[in-house]
């Protein structure tokens, strides 16, 4: 099936897969958001344990999605992998350190003789939540605002100086924080993750005291989320965007490029608007009516919104990783992808994605079929 596709079709297909993984990652960051609220929502040791055990049953999903997102990007658009990871070195390294300390914190926190104390592991979880969401959001912001790199594939023939991708600032990616639009996305994801964290916790924990605090926290986080998100979206839709000519690959600036992308891809616009509405509905349903399934409304909306943003970043002749150093070095899905053969082979692999989603669904239902309460922590099961 995939063999018959044109290269551009495969490139678009793989950008859609990357967008799905990216959107899933943003949704699953409810784990990071929840980690930052352990002390806001849990005032007693038991309450905190319930929250950590609720989140702890899902942290691997976020982690695995991040790993798969990286692997899929490497396989489908390796030039991004080499340019961004090798160039924005400090940004990615800080993100990686934030995820190292998350992975062990759940398992080690409640164990006897754990060397660093339970509180330290809880601080690690907070750091992972804050740094992970803000920096990943800020890094994704560079998809729309560009970064300072150069790419020259001919360098491989220079024996002593063969690096193809080079970063053109000594800050290796940290300069992205100087662009407020990038940071606004980072902060929007930071507060969104907290909103989702609140909704996930009330969805999975049966505890009146936690629920009451959750309502307040929902409001405290939903308002700044909306402020930063609206700023980001309005500025994005009104700004000059990066575009390229599909025939000769020349990159140029286009007025209202991202707004045009939404208009020219109406399905994406519908998904985007539906996503935003669902997030708002999810927040409102819990705040006003205490509906515990609000998490699924806000989560679904988050997925659709993030998916749409990834799509307008890379489709419709849009360079998804613009170079501010030299516009013509910008990465597009056409000049940075793997070959037709590899994208075809990986296309077949992508057919496993629905299977993965199906068994995640089955396991999620099996494990979350009953909300966690205080008595569950005393059962003879694995407890974090």
């Amino acid at each position, binding site marked *: 099936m995939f063999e018959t596709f044109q290269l551009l079709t495969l490139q678009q297909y793989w950008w859609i897969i990357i967008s799905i993984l990216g959107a899933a990652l943003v949704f699953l960051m409810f784990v990071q958001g929840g980690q930052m609220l352990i002390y806001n929502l849990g005032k007693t040791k038991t309450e905190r344990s319930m929250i950590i055990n609720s989140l702890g049953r899902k942290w691997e999903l976020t982690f695995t999605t991040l790993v798969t997102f990286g*692997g899929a990007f490497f396989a489908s658009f390796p030039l991004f992998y080499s340019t961004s*990871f*090798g160039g924005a070195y400090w940004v990615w390294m800080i993100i990686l350190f934030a995820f190292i300390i998350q992975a062990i914190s759940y398992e080690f926190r409640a164990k006897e003789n754990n060397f660093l104390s339970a509180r330290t592991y809880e601080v690690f979880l907070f750091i992972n939540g804050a740094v992970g969401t803000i920096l990943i959001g800020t890094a994704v912001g560079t998809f729309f605002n560009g970064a300072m790199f150069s790419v020259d594939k001919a360098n491989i023939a220079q024996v002593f100086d063969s690096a193809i991708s080079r970063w053109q600032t000594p800050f290796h990616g940290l300069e992205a924080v100087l662009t407020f639009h990038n940071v606004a996305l980072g902060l929007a994801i930071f507060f969104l993750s907290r909103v989702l964290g609140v909704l996930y916790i009330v969805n999975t924990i049966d505890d009146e005291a936690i629920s009451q605090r959750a309502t307040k926290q929902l409001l405290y986080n939903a308002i700044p989320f909306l402020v930063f998100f609206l700023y980001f979206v309005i500025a994005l839709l009104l700004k000059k965007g990066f575009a390229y000519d599909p025939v000769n690959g020349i990159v140029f600036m286009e007025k209202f490029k991202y707004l045009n992308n939404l208009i020219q891809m109406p399905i994406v616009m519908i998904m985007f608007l539906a996503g935003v509405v669902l997030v708002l509905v999810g927040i409102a349903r819990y705040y006003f009516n205490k509906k515990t399934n609000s998490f699924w409304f806000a989560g679904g909306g988050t997925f659709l919104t993030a998916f749409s943003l990834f799509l307008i970043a890379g489709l419709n002749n849009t360079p998804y990783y613009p170079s501010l150093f030299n516009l013509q070095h910008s990465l597009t899905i056409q000049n940075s992808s793997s070959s037709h053969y590899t994208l075809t082979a990986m296309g077949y692999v992508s057919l496993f994605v629905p299977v993965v989603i199906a068994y995640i669904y089955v396991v999620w239902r099996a494990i979350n079929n009953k909300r966690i309460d205080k008595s569950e922590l005393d059962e003879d099961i694995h407890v974090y």
Partner: protein
Amino acid sequence: MTEAFDFSLIDWSRGQFALTAMYHWIFVPLTLGLGFIIAIMESIYVKTGDPAWKRITKFWMTIFGINFAIGVATGIILEFEFGTNWSNYSWFVGDIFGAPLAIEGIMAFFLETTFIAVMFFGWNKVSKGFHLLSTWLVAFGASLSALWILVANAWMQMPVGMKFNPDTARNEMVNFWEVLFSPMAMSKFTHTISSSYLLGAIVVIGISAWFLLKKRHQVFAKRSIVVAAVFGLVTSAFTVLTGDFSAKVIAKNQPMKFAAFEGLYHGQRGAPLVAIGVVSTSPSDPENENIKDFVFKIEIPNFLSYMAFSDFNAFIPGVKDLMEGNEEHGIMPAAEKISKGKLAIDALAEYKQAKAAGNMAKQAEAQQILEENFEYFGYGYFGTNPDHLVPNVPLTFYSFHIMVALGFWFLLFFAIVLVLVYRERISNARFWLIMAIVNIPLAYLASQSGWVTAEMGRQPWVIQDLMPTMTAVSHLDSNAVITTFILFAVVFTTLLIAELKIMFKTIKNGPKTEGGN
């Protein structure tokens, strides 16, 4: 001439990757081995309904969980370090190398991490059968994960199923199945996972032996030993067989690495295998510090030839043959390979220039030269002195011999343990119980030595013959990498200490007492 490279950056980048890989490999083999041992134990529980087997399963599951978390933490770093520290590599071969990493995430890692939730939290939430299936899927998922990572690693050692594209300046995959089923991939996968299963068995026996010595939880300990010893005997025998297969594949495809295994400088027919040897600390060749003679060695005649080619009289090229060439055996001198590599690199530059100028004839001419010489492409990055093509022979020799000797020792050990169990003497066999505990660090030593052999022996190549390590590195300031190296060292070491302290405490507490669920 290679002095023009920034070796500080290259060495620290290598150091950082090695540090991450070695820490990662402390935790992963136990997860791989323990996964199947737990699955076998739970199967017995489901089959017999005996709650003692459930307690045994749960105890080892706790040990598994502690290891799994830190294995995951170090694993994510390795994946991203290909981009952060080896960005040139990531483009040069990303078309091939990225695929197994992505497949690992989609097909294996999700399987493992999804069902691990059932394994840990599902005891009271799903049926016994579903729980058992989940435990097996976690074990299977971990090994499937290893398959794709090892396919990727094997491809670096034996690049197959690809073609260089001068337009994109990279290698592109042309045959996925050749990549997946290359002899190097199969030997590397089977040898690595069987040795990991072996390590899991050694750890289970060692910890159980400690309980027997302390006369605590004796039923638990004896049952654990029975499962682990049977599993260990089978997998250690398989490790020896796959090790033999690996040696043959390496002898054929990475002759320099094979020569380094044995410190063989001068090729010969009927080459002997060095059973025990001590390498001199000072170089015998003043121009190459990696070449050091033996101070002492005990050899088994003709055995190296047999190990490599199943022929007691086969010719095994030594380091000198590979450097200086050997006309009789059709071995090209390294200097000639360097010349051909330079031709290929220059042809690529000319191809690019001709294309930019629209000169089709010159472009075609350059492409032809490039294709004729491409198999030596990586040699073109070396100066006229080919000494840099020799890996660290003493380190490769020692790590190889430690791995092999310990591999055979473990095979014997499992057999002895099973005999003791059969004769019902294991509880009182104090010497062997102590040996079982001593074996735990030895198993880790063997496991790490295996990776040192594989990765140091293939130097200076990141992709055999096509890309030297020095060309693969990212365009970074070495101070940045030094900083992250130190940070990784501190963080990983702290986490290792925490992990060991938790592990020791968990073992000391032992499994839940009888009467518990």
